[in-house]
């Protein structure tokens, strides 16, 4: 699969470091689109990005540290102050609101994009160190992934046309 050096195909690698609902989108959107455009894609999941490989996804959204977050409501945009994240239930409500909004606007779910990633033969690598650190088991992760470390990514990156860190 990874014969970028033998063909004219373009290649891309993405380091996925964040696992919240909003941050899960950029890597999966770019990876699936690139793969659909005949780019060979590898994704390296590390730190908080690693749970995106779990069989059961449970991504959440937080208003905390997200001062640019505005949600459309009744024709206006409502700012979500950092502070409200402290109130129990607010982040859960924001997560539900975002999921509903995405469904309404025809935005794919992360589950769908991840399934598309598998179908498109995207190489998905779980960081061994993160598995150890956070005590995850490979059997909690979806099938078809690989396990690797920094050197695995470096080797891929040196042969890739595009390398992204998200």
């Amino acid at each position, binding site marked *: 699969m990874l014969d970028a050096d033998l063909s004219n195909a373009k290649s891309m690698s993405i380091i996925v470091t964040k696992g919240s609902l909003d941050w899960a989108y950029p890597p999966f*959107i770019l990876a*699936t*689109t690139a793969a*659909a*455009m*005949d*780019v060979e894609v590898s994704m390296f999941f590390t730190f908080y990005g690693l749970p995106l490989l779990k069989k059961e996804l449970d991504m959440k959204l937080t208003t905390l540290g997200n001062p640019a977050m505005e949600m459309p409501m009744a024709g206006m945009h409502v700012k979500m102050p950092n502070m409200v994240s402290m109130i129990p239930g607010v982040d859960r409500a924001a997560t539900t609101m975002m999921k509903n909004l995405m469904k309404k*606007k*025809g*935005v*794919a779910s992360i589950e769908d994009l991840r399934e*598309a990633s598998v*179908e*498109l033969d995207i190489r998905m690598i779980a960081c061994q160190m993160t598995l150890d650190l956070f005590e995850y088991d490979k059997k909690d992760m979806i099938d078809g992934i690989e396990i690797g470390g920094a050197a695995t990514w470096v080797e891929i990156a040196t042969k890739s046309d595009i390398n992204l860190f998200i």
Partner: protein
Amino acid sequence: MAEHLLNAEGLNCPLPILKAKKMLKTVPAGEILKIRSTDPGSVADFAAFCNQTGNELVSSSSEGDIYLFEIKRT
């Protein structure tokens, strides 16, 4: 020649592209896939998709809120 039609209405980025790619695999070379989309971003994106993949964008037009594309599989 069977008609190949993809209705991507109501779908947002990147779903029209992903579905088009999946469907193009079933279209024989030289035949045309027609796509209907409501995503304004798909105008630029199908042009880029065709440039990159080598498939030919035969036409790109719109009828009201619907964007229509014809892609010839190479």
